[in-house]
């Protein structure tokens, strides 16, 4: 997992905090190893390697994540699609000079996208076409953050938060009972807080066009890609979501970026609090 990670524990002695944190970190490492795209021995690599061939057996945890991804797909009308990672083959945000893929480059990749074609049940999953792949971007890291909070709470801790690469889950307020104040980074100015949320025991996740991107001819091309066109979304610079669970906040933020103009009604329907920065820098919702 990329990005900076932090576990902040208050109101406990150093030894018990350390023991709890060790347990939590071990679980993050476990999830990372299990669902990494970069490790050949991860379950994702095995599922992807078997694309177009056989079904791969999955355990309960993987099935639960697939089921959640399926819900995200349904709730986003197909925009949140865990098979859309193949577009990375055409979009290289580190390449110099930057290159915007042509329709001819994207078309064969779009053929490989389609969660609704994936065959899956409680026991196994099969990607029907060779070259297809899945990943748990927008879910996996956030799921890990929620589990960290659960593990810390299980150790009797009640004050603290976990920050996995900017996705924050609180497990209880500060020792004096006041909420944690979590700042939202300005999408166009690193190290500047645009706004902040008070968190007691919920989560805050942000999806933005500034994580991986390039600018070309005055236009921003970011890593959040529409699975229908293969092109980056452009409506929002960033969307931040507060929800009881980090996995909900993270997936809602990503879906909001993908839904573009429809994002406010989607977010309101999900019952989450949110803050969006539109492409022109306007902060929404304006009433808050």
């Amino acid at each position: 997992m990329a990005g900076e990670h932090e576990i902040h524990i208050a109101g406990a002695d150093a030894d018990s905090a350390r023991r709890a944190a060790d347990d939590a970190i071990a679980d993050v490492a476990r999830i990372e190893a299990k669902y990494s795209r970069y490790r050949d021995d991860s379950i994702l690599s095995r599922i992807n390697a078997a694309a177009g061939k056989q079904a791969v057996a999955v355990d309960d945890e993987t099935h639960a994540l697939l089921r959640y991804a399926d819900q995200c797909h349904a709730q986003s009308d197909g925009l949140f699609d865990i098979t859309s990672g193949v577009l990375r083959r055409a979009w290289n945000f580190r390449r110099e000079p930057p290159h915007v893929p042509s329709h001819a480059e994207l078309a064969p990749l779009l053929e490989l996208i389609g969660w609704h074609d994936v065959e899956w049940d409680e026991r196994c999953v099969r990607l029907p076409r060779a070259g297809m792949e899945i990943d748990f971007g927008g879910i996996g890291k956030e799921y890990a953050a929620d589990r960290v909070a659960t593990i810390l709470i299980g150790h009797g801790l009640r004050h603290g938060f976990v920050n996995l690469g900017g996705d924050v889950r609180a497990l209880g307020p500060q020792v004096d009972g006041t909420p944690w104040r979590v700042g939202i980074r300005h999408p166009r100015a690193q190290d500047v807080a645009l706004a902040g949320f008070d968190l007691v025991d919920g989560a805050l996740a942000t999806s933005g066009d500034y994580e991986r991107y390039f600018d070309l001819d005055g236009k921003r091309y970011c890593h959040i890609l529409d699975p229908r066109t293969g092109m980056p979304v452009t409506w929002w610079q960033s969307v931040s979501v507060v929800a009881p669970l980090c996995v909900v906040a993270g997936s809602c933020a990503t879906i909001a970026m993908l839904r573009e103009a429809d994002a406010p009604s989607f977010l309101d329907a999900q019952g989450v609090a949110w803050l969006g920065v539109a492409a022109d820098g306007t902060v929404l919702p304006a009433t808050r």
Partner: protein
Amino acid sequence: MAWVEAAVGVTRVERPHEKRGGALLLSALALPGVVPTDANAQSAPDKGIFEAQYLSYRDWQPGRNRMKVDAPAFYALMPIGDTWVVEGGMVYDSMSGASPLYFNVLSGASVGDYRTAGDIKVTKYVGNQAVSVGAFVSSEQDFLSRGASLNVQYFSEDRNRTWLLGVAGTNDRINATNGVAPNSTRNSVEFVVGITQALSPSDIVQSNLTYYTGHGYYSDPYKPLDTRPSDRQTWAWLTRYNHYFADADATLKLGYRLLLDSFGSTSNAVDVAWAQGLPWYGIAVTPALRFYTQTAANFYKNPPFPSGYVDGDNYSADTRLASFGAITAGVTVAAPLWDGWNVSLRADYYRQDPDWQIFGTGSPGIQIFAARWFQVNLTKNF
């Protein structure tokens, strides 16, 4: 910089349906380990209880008042953190009067005694299990009982079923004031296995099987010639069933207990109670009826005392070991007061008659015996 007031609505993950929308939240709750259900141990009580009770007991036989017991008692339950519960109780009985009378020939030894008893239990909830460790002590002038218990409960994932496994050990020391059997002891172990199953939102059934085995002094030192076996085993099977009638706001409570005793006696008890909620001030009235019947211990001898006594054999003329039937009728009225306080008043009347034995014939020559209880409870939930 604008701080957004978004802290509202992010608490209470465990009741997402109270909030609007949230299809993704509902789905996400199915992910393993994202909500601390395990650590929270949903079965752990999250409220404390304090209870003060006063019990007044009187019993009598025709033309004769016998025992009086007045017993104030206290009980408290305190959750500590999310997974620990500590509970404990104290009772102080003062008894006066004649010890149980079995036949008019004997004047019972006079009893003027008090008893102090206390117990404490600590329970730790871990995931789907709860482990309880308890200790208790009961002290009278001539009797000291101490014991410890270990219980393990296992809750099913949906919390509809609970298994119980328990063991308890007790050490009793008897030092009768009349010098009979000085420094006698009795040790026993009890094992219990049980299941509680919610059949539906309004039906719950519980069944427990208990095995008791003990060794030591079981005789009554205050009853002349009383000689009982030094080993005792019992099997007890208890089953209870509750059904809630939503339309009537009432609960039917049924219970049955069978007890087989190596002393030779078998007892059956049937309980029926109807807890009726009333439409005023949360008051509930619970009339209850219990029918009890037991056969005599095989060393119990009918009056006149000491007929049937053979030196060296077991012998007892204690009418509590006779063959009889008994009915208890009672009513409890409970009402909430204010600020988490509740009060309940209970009255019971007990009547024992050899003619009410239904499995065989009742023991001849023993008198009808009756008792009544009044009990006041004040409970505070906090």
